[in-house]
């Protein structure tokens, strides 16, 4: 019921925000290989704002909460990540709006909505060597696990594992989006910063997922 849902949503957002701040340096190094190195800085500065105002965010329901977070991200994160992550949170929030009993399927649907938002905003798709290449396989695994009847903690762990594998696999891809794409073939051989960042965040969620 709602309180639990909201608590869960808050936990997810707070974990993503705190881990993004904690991983600033590492995320920056990932982006420095063939990008411009600001990925870690952008996420960290943005999520610092989210954490600073965390307690005052509108909590009418999970959807509203996520939408408010989306606005904070978009207005405080620069670079490509601001619009991309902002859109993702906005779409997820939208798909959960008014829903006060969020099922596993609802969560998956929200994540799918986020993916659609990223694709539209970034005019990107699977295979372009972006965070999508980690996010989509991760969601597929989460969905399968939940449908197979795993409880949330297990499903989130499987999702994280899938995200990690998929992120590693991006090193074989040539970047077609983002700054990395300017180096062309040279982007092959290193993982995508956004994809690996996403895997790290998913793993943190799995590591800290509260027992029901």
């Amino acid at each position, binding site marked *: 019921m709602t309180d639990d849902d909201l608590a869960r949503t808050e936990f997810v957002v707070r974990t993503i925000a705190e881990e993004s701040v904690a991983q600033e340096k590492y995320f920056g190094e990932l982006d420095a290989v063939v990008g*411009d190195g600001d990925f870690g800085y952008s996420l960290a500065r943005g999520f610092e704002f989210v954490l600073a105002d965390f307690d005052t965010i509108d909590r009418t329901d999970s959807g509203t909460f996520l939408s408010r977070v989306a606005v904070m991200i978009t207005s405080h994160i*620069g*670079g490509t990540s*601001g619009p991309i992550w902002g859109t993702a949170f906005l779409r997820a929030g939208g798909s959960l709006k008014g829903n006060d009993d969020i099922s596993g399927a609802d969560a998956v649907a929200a994540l799918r909505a986020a993916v659609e938002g990223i694709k539209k905003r970034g005019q990107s798709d699977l295979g372009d060597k972006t965070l999508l290449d980690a996010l989509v396989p991760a969601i597929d695994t989460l969905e399968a696990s939940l449908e197979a009847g795993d409880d949330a903690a297990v499903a989130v762990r499987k999702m994280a594992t899938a995200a990690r594998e998929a992120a590693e696999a991006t090193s074989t891809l040539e970047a*077609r989006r983002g*700054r990395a794409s300017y*180096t062309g073939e040279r982007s092959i051989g290193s993982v995508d910063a956004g994809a690996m960042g996403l895997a790290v965040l998913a793993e943190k969620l799995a590591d800290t997922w509260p027992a029901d």
Partner: protein
Amino acid sequence: MKKFINDPKQFVPEMLEGIALANPDTLKYVPAYNLIHRADAPNNDKVTIIQGSGSGHEPAHVMTVGRGMLDGACPGDVFAAPPLDFITETVKLLASDKGVLLLVNNYTGDRMAFEMAEEVAEADGVKVKTLFIDDDVAVKDSTYTVGRRGVAGNFFVMKAVGAAAEKGADLVELVRIGEKVNSVTRTMGIALTACTPPAKGEPLFELGDDEIEIGVGIHGEPGRRRAKWMPANDIADVLLDAILPDLPFESGDRVAVMVNGLGGTPISELYLLYGIIHKKLDEKGISVGRNYVGDYCTSLDMAGASLTLVRLDEEIEGLLAEPAEIAIRVF
């Protein structure tokens, strides 16, 4: 990292404050949005021209705010497009009855932020148009890519529309002029060293004592390929061979030439390079109508240079020749 800097997170704000303190009569600074704008903006008899993009490219663009150039610049952090609200607030503050022209170098992050900002502004009833600059020939343009980058050539679009705006050109006219200048502008860059973003504290990539990066942009990312260092004569050939066939520039053309320093290269070397390029253009029957040698659009402390050619016609050359009063280099 050895820079004149305090807290890396304050690098951009402290730099902007310095610009404001150095130009108390002509510029205003709004810390909340990294905004540097003309003290006399908005002016309802003139279209407001705003440039976005990240920081680390100085003098572009916060130091090119002034009469005949920009009305305002609201850069993001180093190498990061400005967050949405920087742009929307800047547009609100500087919007003029004649409208607002947003100049944006073509990068994913900037594109997205400014497209969103344009929607917001129009919703607020502001007349606004966005102009994307993409002069970098190092990037292959195709439907599968994000298209070419906007780099030092941005200066010529900025200068041309800035001059036209002073003379009262309306928004539609400015877009026409800007697109025309962008369409005849080509740039290619070479890095001798990697740059060091304040937040990172170390060079973005490793480069050997005898290595250079060919085809770099202005965000410190590696270029299209790495090569052994070569004499300035050969570097001039690499730059010209990439630029000339692209438009193409041909015998009989009259051009503006910019040899732009990337931040760590002294002007002595830039003039040496300019001399070589000038002579090679002569040999090809291409005459230099105007030339620009110095740091115009940098990549922090990167040693290197970019070459920009603009094919001139009477209209463009006239606009480039118009006066401008900006923050930097006062004699």
